[in-house]
Structure formats: structure tokens, C-alpha cells
């Protein structure tokens, strides 16, 4: 049976890996190429690379780094950040990305999902959603969690999957950086709503949180985290060993 995936996420700005807490207060961690190679060789099942660069100058720098990363790892690579058009899909796929993650770009124009799915296949199109509770409703935020779209998260995710998104990365803004566990309530609702793979993101503080995630929500396919891996608080081989002990199928 298919294994649960553990995915480190690398936010890259100005050619370096950064990690925000509640999407603010960025701190430099390490070289993206070194970190990616380390993860690829130490049990990561996949890597996610987010370009949080603002200027077009630095977008070229990101493209160069992405090519280096893709050429030195032999696990699947998902790339996101600043994907607004098919040309953006093309740009990162040419650098060696396997999947492309859309967020604000798809909120601006949902047809981007459909067009990309038709050209590259559903498996290539990953919907990333930043979600926060507003008055008790799961609400979609755009632009790295800064802008309330007013959209209902479940409705948006269902629409995106119907348009052709082949996987959903669920980022809970409420639990992100808090390190008190994944947002199980939110994830449970999403798993019931769609039948494509669901990746949980935001809130992992330790190994127990991953065990909780997969035991309580067997439909979740993968757990994604950044700082706990980057700062060595959780080593992926240790995490996998403990997941296996808890009866969860891992590679």
C-alpha cells in the first residue's frame, strides 16, 4: 500500500532558505541546494520549493537555483510562488520541477488550473490554500496569508479540484508556527470534501503531531513542515522510524 509522505518545505528568497512564523519574521536558514540534497538523501519523500521573491531580477536567481536543486535530488519536486500563468508553469517545469503549486494566481484566475491541467495533466497541478478561521468559517487568504478573500475554503477547494487540481496542500494559518499540532478539524473537513491527495501543512511541532495526524485522519496523504526539519528539531529518519512503530506505512 502507498506510504505516507513526509515533505520538507523550503521557502526561498534572494537565493536563501527562509522560514516565517505565522508568515512574518523571516530568518535565514541555509543554502537551498545543500538543504535539498540533504533532505533527498535523508528520507524526505518529496520536496516543496516556494519562491517568495518579489522582483523579476531575483526570480531569475530562483530559476538558476531551482535548476541546481532539480539536478541534484532524485525525489519529486514541487515548486510554487509567483505562478500566475502557463508561462510560469513552463518556466519552472523546464528547470526540472515535477509539480507546480498555485495559490494567489489561481484565486485571481481559476481557469489557470484548468488550462494547466489540460496541458500538463492533473497530477502536475497542486492547489495550495492558506486558510484561517474568520467568525468560525474556514476562509481563504491570498498573498502569503495577508489578504482575506472572503472565499469559503471548502467551496474553493472543491471548485479547484473540479477544474483539475490533482492535489491540495492545506496551510492552516491558525496553527502555522504555533507548533501545537496540525489543524485536524480543518483537514478532516477537506478530506471529506475531495478525493485527491491532501497534504497537511502548518503546526507540526514534533513527531507526535505527525503520528496524531495520520492516526486520526487516515485519508491525509502527506505531512509538510519547514522549521522543525531545518533546525534539526525533528530528523526525518527518526520521524519515519516512530511512524512505522505506530503502525503507519512509511518508506
Amino acid at each position, binding site marked *: 500500500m502507498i506510504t505516507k509522505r513526509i515533505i520538507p518545505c523550503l521557502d526561498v528568497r534572494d537565493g536563501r532558505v527562509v522560514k516565517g512564523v505565522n508568515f512574518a519574521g523571516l530568518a535565514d536558514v541555509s543554502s537551498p541546494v545543500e538543504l535539498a540534497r540533504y533532505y533527498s538523501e535523508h528520507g524526505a519523500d518529496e520536496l516543496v520549493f516556494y519562491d517568495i521573491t518579489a522582483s523579476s531580477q531575483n526570480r531569475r536567481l530562483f530559476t538558476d537555483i531551482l535548476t541546481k536543486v532539480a539536478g541534484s535530488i*532524485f*525525489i519529486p519536486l514541487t515548486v510554487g510562488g509567483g505562478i500566475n500563468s502557463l508561462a510560469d508553469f513552463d518556466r519552472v517545469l523546464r528547470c526540472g520541477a515535477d509539480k507546480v503549486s498555485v495559490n494567489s494566481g489561481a484565486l485571481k484566475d481559476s481557469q489557470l488550473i484548468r488550462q494547466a491541467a489540460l496541458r500538463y495533466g492533473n497530477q502536475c497541478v497542486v492547489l495550495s490554500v492558506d486558510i484561517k478561521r474568520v467568525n468560525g468559517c474556514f476562509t481563504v487568504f491570498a498573498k502569503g496569508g495577508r489578504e482575506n478573500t472572503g472565499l469559503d475554503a471548502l467551496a474553493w477547494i472543491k471548485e479547484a479540484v473540479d477544474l483539475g487540481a490533482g492535489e491540495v496542500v492545506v496551510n492552516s494559518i491558525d496553527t502555522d508556527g504555533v507548533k501545537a499540532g496540525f489543524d485536524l478539524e480543518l483537514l478532516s473537513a477537506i478530506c471529506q470534501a475531495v478525493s485527491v491527495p491532501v497534504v497537511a501543512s502548518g503546526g507540526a511541532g514534533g513527531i507526535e503531531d505527525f503520528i496524531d495526524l495520520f492516526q486520526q485522519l487516515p485519508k491525509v496523504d502527506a505531512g509538510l513542515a519547514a522549521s522543525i526539519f531545518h533546525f534539526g528539531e525533528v530528523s526525518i529518519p527518526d520521524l519515519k522510524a516512530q511512524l512505522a512503530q505506530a503502525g503507519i506505512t512509511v518508506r
Partner: protein
Amino acid sequence: MITIIDYGVGNLFSLKSSLEAIGQPVTISNQPETIRQGQRIILPGVGAFGDAAQKLRRSGLDQVLLEEADKGKPLLGICLGMQLLFDTSSEYGLHTGLGLIRGQVQPISSVIPPDLKVPHMGWNALHFPTDQEKHPLFNYTNDGDCVYFVHSYYAAPWGPALIAFSEYGAALTAAVARRNICGCQFHPEKSGLVGLNILRAFCEMGEDL
């Protein structure tokens, strides 16, 4: 020299990088002469069967592949490239493949329980049929090693071509072989060290097994 066939289907960058990582000289080409000169051929592919089969035929590369395979040159199809080795596929209509391996490509959904997600995507274990010797493609691979799959269709061989399978609600074909011709449904170039070792084993395979 290994030649990766470039017929306008999918991303060949990772495959090239992984062969370079195991020290194999590699060319990406759509030129019949270059393909004929190489010692080994890899047929990659992602996307839909019908479109890919048409591209192979239009470019005339299907004939080059058939001739080189017939001469005994080691050929490896990967993912859709493996499915193209078969007789036919029922993906969006009935399409004809290369016919190098007997059998048909069918939707996974027709054989797995409805609660399982399609595509079959992620890392899954390889298992080898117990009634035969392990194929040389898996000289460095153990039963239970995980590799990376992304597919909604699977190939059902007629006859003894199956050399590895995965379990996903049903036994799904993971690799097939007939003499010098082999194919894997999973992506060795995305399967970490296990995958690199499968590519290494392919590079060591002799002609006309």
C-alpha cells in the same frame, strides 16, 4: 552511450541528471542516427497514451525503436514509455502501441476498490513474482523497496512479461520485460537511491537476455 528519446513528451531533465549521477554518458535526441548509434535506449513519457503514440509515429521514431529493439539493444520504457511498449491502450479511446510486449493498458479504477484515490501517486513497495528468478533490472533491489509512482492506467501483460508489481487494492504491474526490452511504471529517476540502482542495473544489462 545511452540515448533518451525526445519525442516532445514530458520532462527529460531529471532522467538525464540521474543517469549522469551514476556516471553514465547520456544524450537526449530525436535523431534516428544518434538513437541507432547509442548502446542503450530509454523511452520516457508522461501524459496521454494516444497523443504520445501519435507523436512517436509522426516522427518515425517508432520504426527506429522497433528495429533497434529487434537487434537486441537494451530498451527501457519509463511510465507512459513503458505503457507504449504494449499492444493497445484504452485511455480516451482505443490506441495502438509499439506491440513489443503483449498486453493492454487499462484504467486502474477498473480493478481497485472505489475508495482508493486515482492516480496511484506516491511511494509504494516493489514486489517480485515468486515463481521466477528476479530479473537483472532488480539486481540491486530488494522485495519491499519503495519507488515513486504516478499513474491512472496500468499495463496488463498477456503471458509471462511481469517482473515486478505493487499492491494498491490490487496487484498493479510495476515492471515488465521480454528479452532486451523492459519497462517500469514507476519513475526510477524520482525514486532516490533505489531508483538510481535500477538505472544502474539497466546500464549493466547485456543484449538479448
